[in-house]
């Protein structure tokens, strides 16, 4: 086991895949000479050159569309969209082409590509740069949505993404990049659709993904002090969603809280809550609670921003209210 940052785990995996297959190309704004706006691709431009690590114009739509076309044509493109905020400009390509080509061509075409993007708030970037829209991507049939939390997740899930025959949206919470963790030395991959139980407890199920797992683990600590033991589930992928792990936990604990940075109203947390209700209604001692981002465009001022994001105390309170 080596200790590695989340960023480092991603970089190492990209590097290996670039080495292993010359049809792998990276495309994106400032991923080359600049080194990537979150430094994930740093050094890769020097190692592989501008033909493999391609700096693009600021043209999100054609960058994603060209990635799709390149995948149709036999390459293995990894497109970096810098942040999920800018992905809105490429959403038509993702929704109407990447996700649908297999179906509308009756399986003649496939789009084996990965679209990476940073997501999340917390560093005072204000409303146009602080969104967490992974739930939107999870809504689209035809794509898969990956939301790693640990460096181990990052590497293992990216490996799987490289072996996928379908388009993968790979979400990287900016608060995680510098965080470190153990990563196996040997080759490994984490299959999509397998959540990780990060911590076990019999009293309540806390379900988070991506950056929010951090606050969720913090909540579990608070709960422990309050004499309650929590199962903490790190979903790892939103589509496919590991319903079995969620439901098994709820059957044990009878209580659940779903945590998400994104706006609550109409967000993905509602889907998880609805599924739990559908699958485990009789096991529930009370309604599934949701702790999500406040329903506001993200403010710049630090205290306002912090108050708009889920925090451990809020999560713990929501859990305790179920007893």
């Amino acid at each position: 086991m080596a200790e590695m940052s989340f960023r480092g785990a991603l970089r190492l995996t990209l590097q290996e895949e670039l080495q292993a297959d010359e049809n792998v190309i990276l495309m994106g704004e400032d991923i080359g000479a600049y080194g990537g706006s979150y430094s994930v691709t740093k050094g890769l431009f020097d190692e592989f050159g501008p033909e493999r690590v391609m700096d693009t114009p600021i043209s999100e739509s054609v960058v994603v569309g060209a990635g799709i076309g390149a995948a149709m044509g036999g390459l293995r493109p990894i497109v970096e969209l810098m942040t999920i905020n800018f992905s809105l400009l490429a959403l038509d390509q993702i929704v109407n082409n990447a996700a649908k080509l297999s179906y509308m061509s009756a399986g003649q075409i496939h789009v084996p590509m990965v679209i990476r993007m940073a997501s999340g708030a917390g560093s005072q970037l204000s409303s146009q740069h602080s969104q967490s829209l992974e739930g939107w991507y999870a809504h689209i049939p035809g794509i898969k949505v990956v939301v790693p939390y640990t460096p181990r997740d990052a590497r293992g899930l990216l490996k799987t993404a490289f072996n996928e025959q379908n388009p993968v949206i790979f979400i990287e919470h900016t608060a995680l990049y510098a965080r470190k963790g153990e990563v196996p030395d040997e080759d490994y991959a984490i299959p999509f659709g397998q959540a990780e139980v990060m911590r076990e407890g019999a009293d309540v199920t806390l379900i988070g993904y991506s950056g929010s797992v951090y606050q969720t683990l913090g909540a579990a600590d608070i709960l422990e002090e309050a004499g309650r033991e929590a199962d903490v589930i790190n979903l790892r992928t939103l589509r496919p969603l590991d319903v079995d792990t969620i439901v098994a936990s709820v059957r044990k604990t009878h209580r659940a809280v779903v945590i998400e940075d994104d706006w609550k109203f109409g967000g993905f947390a509602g889907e998880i809550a609805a599924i739990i209700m559908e699958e485990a209604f009789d096991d529930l001692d009370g309604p599934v609670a949701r702790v999500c981002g406040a329903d506001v465009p993200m403010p710049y001022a630090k205290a306002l921003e912090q108050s708009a994001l889920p925090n451990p105390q809020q999560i713990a309170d929501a859990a305790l209210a179920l007893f």
Partner: protein
Amino acid sequence: MTQLIDKPPAKELPNEQLIELLRKMMLIRRFETKAAEMYAKQKIAGFLHLYNGEEAVAVGAISALNDDDQLLTHYRDHGHALARGVEPGRIMAELFGKETGVSGGRGGSMHLFDTEKSFMGGYAIVCGHLPLACGLALANQRLKNGRIVICFFGDGAVNEGEFHESLNLAAVWKLPVIFMCENNFYGMGTDIRRVSAVIEIYKRAAAYAMPSKQVDGMNVLEMYGETLKAAERVRAGEGPSFLEAICFRYRGHSMADPEAYRDRGQTERWRELDPIITFRKTLTEDGVIDEGAFQTLEAEVEDIVNEAVRFAEESPVPQLEELYTHVYKEDS
């Protein structure tokens, strides 16, 4: 491997190839007219956009390319598919929503796909396929397989942001792609003069330092010849090329369009330039065909189209159990 048949210049086309150009245009015309009938009979549903009047564009351009050069187009795609040699029966079956359709009945008229023919699809989001054309061209460039890409779109698509992004990217990366704009002067009911700052569309390519030219889209030989020249440059690695084919659609935008926005007279004037009539005349004058040969061609395309309808009629609809098939490709 790549098949790189040498295409002769327009002036040197042998007679059988000239006749083939005529035959393909006639096939498209007959097919489209039959499709309209079938729509009226409610055998076909959804949106149906016909290619009548524009046959020379697809036939001329596509005949100038190799069979494995990839082709993408918009929703008005039957003509391009037929010009590429996609089976008429399987196209008609697609319009009928049958399992035997080129897209298994999933795509319908706007989404024909036949990857074996390097026909990479019809797309219904205006301009949404230009980025894909760039990507396919990038793949060809990297794989050094000698294939180029041709991408058809309308005058209306030119005002979308993706037009700009795609042309710039193709130019910067010197991608092997031909952008073929079918300028029929209307995007749905909107006259190009009301929405485009520069209506000579080929001039817009200058913003990307891309070679471009206006071509007579009613003249199949000119389409063939200019596409061939563009293809040579593109295949030689000189980067993308742009062609603006001046043409006209005889029918409404789709079957739902009563054409209240333009007068019949305009269409009548264009019909005088009809690509099939004028090319038939040329071939007759040059002694390539006579009345008998033309009648034979007519009978031939009539048969093909009738057979296509029969095939479509008799084919099975998709099974309901297959609703979820193809959402994802299962791991192999």
